Every structure is written in structure tokens, then in C-alpha cells.
């Protein structure tokens, strides 16, 4: 038998795929934590079905988890994978399209028995019929090997079956020369009260590792060196967790109580779950009866002096629309996190999309401007939410923070910030009754005073009817309405003075400027970097502030021959850019429920560069 050779790699992408009951998300997360622990940069993406347990063995029930890790800067979960772990035939069928030609397949033989082949609608066994001749196929009887490893323990067959993902994980740890410690520690803690399951999982994890070591089934063993990351303490974090912690941190830094009114919705529910755990921080979470009660309870809480927040996805945001208008009218702070998903209507609940942009920008009756901030990466959800809260409080306005399913569920290493270095965003409630007018504006910010119930002498009424410029009393007079509409618009537009200027990555002028917003950041950055390595005149402008836009955006756009705007929609940011700056921008649009691959953007830039030459 040939001796195993060792090979150093800069980056690798692995996709774990199996039935939704096979624990693929857990396997992927464990692999992620271990790679992060040894210091790799990484990015992950879960790909799971909307159904909790779709029929076992069918393609509808396939759950996948992709991790891209390396010793170099990693910006995306990877366009395609180098390794596919397929626990059954359906998983192979659904995921083979992501595997690079020549890539590695690790197939669980038991998952390709007649029953599974039939469920996956394979006419013949792809492991045997030559379908996979272009790949390196490793057939491993994971189910059987797991059963043997647990023979002495007398466990139920169900428990045995549930452990087999740890066998696959053990094999992958061996293949990439990763330590078992992180996962062993996790198993120890997680199953401390269920020693039987703890011991079984440990045994199977080690069995997978040992199997790879002793059988020398894999000819090559790989090593990915740690990445050069900024020194400091890191953790792995998903976008939804980052958003939840961002809200908590903002409330703390604002010296306000945090109130979340929310209704469960995929893919935003994890924010509600996370915040619900932290009662000892004084966080008040209120699972409302519907989306409308979620936002209106938050508005009520803000009226009473808390930082009112609500979390949702596109369909929920649609329901909150009228209340958003109310928040604009009564000028109270409110943070709305919209974790976008595929639409319209119920659409693709577990898939990602950027098609809520125009909804949040324009989707209200009347002139109702709302600041919009979009997160770029999973960890950036923390900053985006924090900044949203800062603006909401300072300018007495609702703010919408856009993330999406890809960010919410995706994860990356995060350099943990120091609380002391975060800005103080606290405010003062109005307490002085002398000369108090509910709608008198701060000269600098145009914000009205925040006068909360419980304050003697400041009793006043607010509401959704148009109000008098100063007193807040109902006032329908033409001139006053005109003034109020302009004041509300000016207040929001004026925020542009209070945000940093936009910065271009790459040359400040040239052939192609790729402009993006939100979660396409990583794919665009990677594509632009690849072109720049080839010496092409390509730059990247990422827009974090959608409304108002940074003051210099128009100027930056004007310095390039071609402006390309990749979006996971039919062209929404591009409409705003064209209308704001009259630029002849071009769109690159993908609307498949999937993130961009860097290569897709890279190819489009190629086309544009060719076009510029001719």
C-alpha cells in the first residue's frame, strides 16, 4: 500500500451533505470551530430545506453545510467545493453540481442502497456506473463502521444511526490534519448529562479518525496553515447572533433598556432566540401574536423610553409597513432588522436574496423616509445593528438594518471588540418642563425631544395624524404639512453629515468600478482582487449606507468608465444609483436563492474589460 503523502494547501472548501436528520449542520459547525481554533480564516454557509423533516432519503430532505477555510484571506463560503461528503444518494444528487471536476467525494455506501437510490430517483448506482469517473471517489461504509464501533455499548439503532456524522467528521479531521480537541470538549459539555450519547459520539469520532489513519484509504493528507489575522481574541459568529449581540451592546452603550417585539420568521428567528436567553441583562423579549404587534409593541416601548427593536424577514416587513410610517410620524427611535429571504410572498424561506431593498426604501404610504444600513458579512451584522441604533437614538427615527439569510446563517471568525472602544451612544431624555414643545427640534440633528411617560410636567400627546411643527397638535393646514414633510426628509438626509465617507478599494479612477451592498461584499471583493492581481483597472465600492448615501458616492462613481452593480435581485440598488447620480450603471443580477460566486462576477468584469477595449 502506498504511503500517505502530505500536501500544503492555501484554501479548501468542504461540503457536508446528508439527510436533514443526519446532523450535517452540526458536523459543519464542529469542523468550522476546529478550523477557526487553529487560526484559519473561514466563511461558512448552511444550505438546508424549509421543511423540518422532509421525507427521509429524498432530494427535498437534503441538508448541506459548506465551509471555506484557508491560510489566506477568505471572503466567501467558496464558489464550489473541493470535497463533498455525501451521506446518501440524494445528497450526492443535489450537491454534485457544486463539486469541482477532479474533486473528492466521500460517499457513505449504506446511503446508496436500493431504497436510497430509488428515493433519490437514480436509475443506477452512481458509485458503480461511471457517473463519477471525473472525481476521486472514496466509498466508505460509514453506517456499518459506526455500528461496529458502538457494538459493545448496546445502544438503540436510532442512537447508533445518529452518531454516524461524527465518523465522517473524524475522517475529515484526519484528512486535514486537524485536532479532535475542540469537538471532544464540545461533546463533553453538550452531553454531560447524557453519558451514553457522549461516550458514543466520542467513540465514533475517534473511530473515523483511526479508520483513516490505519487503512490509509486517503493517499494524500493535507495541511492548511493558520491565516495571518489581526492579533486579538476571536470567536466564530453567525450573522443572527452578531445582530442580537449588536442590539444588546447598543442598548448598553446607550444606557437604555432593550425591548424586542418579534414574531418568529425564517431566517430571522435566531435573533429572537438569542435575545430571549439573556434575561440577566435585563433584555425584555416579547414574542408577539403577529408581525404587526411585534413592531407596534416596540414602538410603545420606545415611547416609554426603551430601545424598541423588532426583527423580521420580507413578508413580516410587509406587514409592519403601516407601523413604520407611524414611527416616522411620531419620531421615536426604533431598530428594525430585516433578514431578507427569497420572495415574493412566502417565496423561498430558507434561501437568500436582496430583493427587499426597494420595499424598505420606498414601501410606505406618504413621504416616509427611513435610514437604511446594510451589513456586509456575518460578523458585520454586529456593527450594522449598532450603527442603526446609534442613528435611531440620535435622530429619533426608525432605522432599518438589512441583512439576509446568507449572512444570518453564515459564520466567520470575528475579532471580538472591546466594549470600551465602542462609541457612547447615550442620549438624554427631556426632563425640563420649561418651554417644552414635543416637536421642537434640535438645531443640529433636527431630532425632537424624547420625553417619556413618567416625567412630571411633560404630559403630551403624539399620534399618526399630521402634527403642528412645534406643539405636535393635529394640524392639517397646507403650509404646515409641506413644512413637516420637508423637515422629516431633511432630518434623514442630514444624517449624511454624520457618517464616514465612502471608500474605494483599489484605484480611485479607472475602467471598472464594481458597486455592491450587503452580503455580496465577499464575492465582489474576491472577484475584484483576482482582477487586480492580473493588473486590471478594477475597483470595488461597497455601500453600507443605502439611505442616506454617503456624500461622496456620486463623485466616486464619476471616476470610472464603467460602473457594474451586482445584486441578488433584478436591479434595485442600481435604480437608486441611477436616480440619485444619473450614472449609466450596468447590472449583474442573480435571483436563484443563492449567493453570487466570485467567478460569476469575475467573468462579467472580464466581459466589460473586453468591451472597454474594443
Amino acid at each position, binding site marked *: 500500500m502506498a504511503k500517505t503523502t502530505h500536501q500544503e494547501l492555501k484554501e479548501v472548501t468542504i461540503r457536508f451533505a446528508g439527510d436533514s436528520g443526519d446532523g450535517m449542520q452540526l458536523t459543519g459547525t464542529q469542523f468550522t470551530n476546529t478550523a477557526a481554533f487553529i487560526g484559519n480564516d473561514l466563511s461558512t454557509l448552511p444550505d438546508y430545506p424549509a421543511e423540518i423533516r422532509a421525507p427521509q432519503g429524498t432530494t427535498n430532505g437534503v441538508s448541506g453545510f459548506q465551509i471555506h477555510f484557508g491560510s489566506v484571506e477568505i471572503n466567501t463560503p467558496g464558489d464550489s467545493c473541493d470535497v463533498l461528503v455525501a451521506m446518501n444518494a440524494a445528497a450526492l444528487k443535489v450537491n454534485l453540481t457544486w463539486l469541482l471536476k477532479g474533486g473528492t467525494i466521500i460517499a457513505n455506501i449504506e446511503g446508496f442502497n436500493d431504497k436510497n437510490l430509488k428515493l433519490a430517483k437514480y436509475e443506477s448506482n452512481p458509485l458503480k456506473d461511471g457517473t463519477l469517473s471525473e472525481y476521486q471517489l472514496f466509498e466508505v461504509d460509514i453506517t456499518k463502521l459506526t455500528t461496529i464501533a458502538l457494538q459493545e455499548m448496546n445502544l438503540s439503532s436510532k442512537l447508533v444511526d445518529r452518531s454516524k456524522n461524527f465518523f465522517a467528521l473524524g475522517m475529515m479531521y484526519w484528512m486535514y490534519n486537524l485536532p479532535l480537541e475542540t469537538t471532544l470538549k464540545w461533546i463533553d459539555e453538550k452531553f454531560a448529562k447524557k453519558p451514553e450519547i457522549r461516550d458514543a459520539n466520542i467513540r465514533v469520532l475517534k473511530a473515523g479518525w483511526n479508520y483513516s489513519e490505519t487503512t490509509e484509504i486517503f493517499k494524500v493528507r493535507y495541511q492548511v496553515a493558520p491565516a495571518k489575522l489581526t492579533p486579538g481574541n476571536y470567536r466564530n459568529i453567525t450573522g443572527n447572533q452578531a445582530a442580537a*449581540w449588536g442590539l444588546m451592546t447598543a442598548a448598553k452603550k446607550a444606557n437604555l433598556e432593550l425591548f424586542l417585539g418579534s414574531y418568529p420568521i425564517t431566517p430571522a428567528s435566531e435573533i429572537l432566540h438569542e435575545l430571549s436567553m439573556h434575561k*440577566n441583562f435585563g433584555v425584555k423579549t416579547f414574542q408577539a401574536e403577529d408581525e404587526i*404587534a411585534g413592531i407596534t409593541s416596540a414602538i410603545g416601548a420606545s415611547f416609554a423610553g426603551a430601545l424598541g427593536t423588532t426583527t423580521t424577514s420580507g413578508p413580516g416587513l410587509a406587514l409592519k409597513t403601516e407601523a413604520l410610517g407611524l414611527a416616522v410620524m411620531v419620531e421615536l427611535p426604533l431598530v428594525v432588522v430585516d433578514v431578507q429571504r427569497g420572495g415574493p410572498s412566502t417565496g423561498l424561506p430558507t434561501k437568500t436574496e436582496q430583493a427587499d431593498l426597494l420595499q424598505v426604501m420606498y414601501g410606505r404610504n406618504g413621504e416616509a423616509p427611513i435610514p437604511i444600513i446594510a451589513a456586509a458579512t456575518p460578523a458585520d451584522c454586529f456593527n450594522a445593528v449598532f450603527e442603526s441604533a446609534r442613528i435611531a437614538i440620535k435622530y429619533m427615527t426608525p432605522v432599518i438594518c438589512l441583512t439576509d439569510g446568507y449572512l444570518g446563517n453564515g459564520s466567520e471568525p470575528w475579532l471580538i471588540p472591546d466594549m470600551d472602544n465602542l462609541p457612547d451612544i447615550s442620549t438624554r431624555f427631556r426632563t425640563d418642563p420649561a418651554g417644552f414643545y414635543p416637536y421642537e427640534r434640535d438645531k443640529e440633528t433636527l431630532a425632537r425631544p424624547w420625553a417619556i*411617560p413618567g416625567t412630571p410636567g411633560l*404630559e403630551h400627546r403624539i399620534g399618526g395624524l399630521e402634527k403642528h411643527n412645534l406643539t405636535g397638535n393635529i394640524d392639517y393646514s397646507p403650509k404646515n404639512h409641506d413644512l413637516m414633510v420637508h423637515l422629516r426628509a431633511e432630518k434623514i438626509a442630514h444624517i449624511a453629515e454624520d457618517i464616514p465617507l465612502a471608500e474605494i478599494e483599489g484605484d480611485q479612477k479607472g475602467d471598472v468600478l464594481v458597486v455592491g451592498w450587503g452580503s455580496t461584499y465577499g464575492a465582489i471583493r474576491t472577484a475584484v482582487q483576482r482582477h487586480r492581481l492580473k493588473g486590471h483597472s478594477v475597483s470595488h465600492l461597497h455601500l453600507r449606507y443605502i439611505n442616506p448615501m454617503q456624500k461622496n458616492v456620486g463623485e466616486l462613481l464619476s471616476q470610472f468608465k464603467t460602473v457594474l452593480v451586482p445584486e441578488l435581485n433584478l436591479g434595485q440598488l442600481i435604480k437608486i444609483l441611477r436616480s440619485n447620480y444619473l450614472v449609466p450603471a450596468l447590472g449583474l443580477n442573480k435571483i436563484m436563492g443563492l449567493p453570487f460566486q466570485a467567478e460569476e462576477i469575475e467573468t462579467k468584469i472580464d466581459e466589460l474589460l473586453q468591451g472597454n477595449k474594443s
Partner: protein
Amino acid sequence: MSALIQSIPLQSTPHETSLFTSKDLQSDQEVRWCPGCGDYSILAQAQRIMPDLGIPRHKIVFVSGIGCSSRFPYYMNTYGFHSIHGRATSIASGVKLAQPDLSVWVVTGDGDGMSIGGNHLIHLLRRNIDLKVLLFNNQIYGLTKGQYSPTSEKGKITKSTPFGSLDYPFNPLTLALGASATFVARSLDRDQKHLQSILKRAADHVGTSFIEIYQNCSVFNDGSFSQFTDKEVKDDNVVVLEHGKPLLFGKEKNKGIRLNGLSPEVVSLIDGKFSVNDVVVHDEKDTALSYILANMTYQSHLPRPIGVFLSIERPTYEAEMLRQIELSIKKQGKGDIQALLHSGETWTIK
């Protein structure tokens, strides 16, 4: 609660309370309901009882939705929020959860509270958040100029139902009881003393108080409650519920409500066949009885009960929420964000 909120004195002092009279509650806004509208009386009674509650004016909040009744907060010189259609209950819930020591009142109507806002109302009632809900029931849409409402009688001819409405009406009280309300009452705009006493009872109740107030719309539905308010007939058509007292009515109190099995029936106490001992004695703590009494609504052969149908104790949502917060602080210690950010798997890059 944040330090900033705590810095504002929330506790009432006798000094402050004594400073505030019914007149202080009148805001500088001109009241703009139609002449003869029942809302005037409800506003007056609310302003009359508020100074007696021992709550300083700055701790009182009125929240309303949309509709004629929802203009109410503009006329009360307390904190007020005139919100959007149907959502007063959920906005008020947020106010109360953020500052549980405020006295929070919801003013809503049959359309606002039971049609567009029906969902929020039932969920509020089951949660038992300590809000005082005044549902002005005029059995019509007034502000939109006269369409039938969810409490309009079936067959009602209105602008939107020229051939008569097809919907069977809600009974607000059975709806509230069905949603597990802990305080359910009914009163009338015209009966000032009774309305005042019910408002006070509602204020004293710890938990959601639900009051249906029959309110005459003098423009679009005039006289819909006259049988219960007109001097000549009201004694025969209304039975006043009083805890521990028999259900007697009629000018001479010579008629009573007797339970025949579970069905209420009117008995005369004159002919010697029945005595007061046969008459139901009201018990506000008896949930089953409250259903029977609430179901007397819309039954033309029975008098209409007013008063407190049910008043029972159940922990409020906000008390339990605060208890959970206290408990988890006790168990885990007060949360430290920096420690949270470093919790779980972390690693150091040098």
C-alpha cells in the same frame, strides 16, 4: 431599568396627587365629537375619577387606535398616543412592559378593537397585561361615515349593506371571556354614576380590565341603546350586577333572573311562585356564571346585564416577566456584555 429612567421620580407623592383635579385633565385641544355623542360623557367620567385613583398625572398614559373614540387621548392632559387602526392594545402593551409602573389605558371602539384589532385584543386578554381597555361600542363605523361594524345587529341597513348585513355580531363580553380575560365589565355612556364606579373598579384591578361601554352614535346609529338608557324603560331592560347580591330588576325590583338548569330566565317575584331566594346571586369570581350572564346579550326576552361580570386574579404578564429577569440575574449574575462576547469557543491570534 436604565439609570436614566430611574433618575426620573416615578413614585407618586401626596403633594403631586393633590395638585391634580378633573379640570387639570382637560387638554388645550377643542373637543370635536359630534353634538350629542356618547363620547363626551365617557370622557367626563374618566376625567372625574382619575384624580381619585392616587396616581399622579404624569404616570398616566392613554393609548388609542383609529376611530371616533380614538381621539380621546387628545382631550386628556396626560401622556397620550393616538396610534394606528387596531393597534392600540399592542402599542400599550409595549408601553406597559417597558415601564410597568405606569397606569396605561386603552381607548378603542367596536371596529378598532374587534375588527381590525381583534387579534391583538384577544392576545392581550390572555396575557393579562395590566392595561385598562375601554371599548366604546356604538355598533357602527362612525368616522368612515356609517358602515356596519362587527357588533352591528344582523340585517342592519347601512351604506355598505343596503340589503342588510349578513354577519352575525360579536358579543364583546363572551369574546373577552373566551380569551381568558380576568376582568370583564359593561357600562353605559348615559349612566354617569355606574360608569364612574366601573372605571374605578377597572383601575383597581391588577391585570387586563376590559369594559364594554355602550355609546350612542347620535349621527349614524342614534338610539341603538335607548332601551337601556331611556328613563321610562331602562329599569325593565337592564339588570345591574352587584357582587353578592341577587339579580333583581324592574322599577320596584320585583323581577329576578333565575337559572333554569344553565339557562337564565326572568321570574316575577309578585305572584308568590318565586321568591328572592330563587334568584341568582351574582359572584364575580365565578367564571361559569360570567359566561351565562354575558350570554344574556342579544336575547330580547332577557334584560341586559351591566356591571362587573368577572373579576378574578391571575399573575400579570409583566410581573412574571420581571420575575424571570430577577431570577436569571440571581442565578447567572447581572449580565456583562464583554464576558458574553468572550463566552463559548474563542481563540487568540498572536
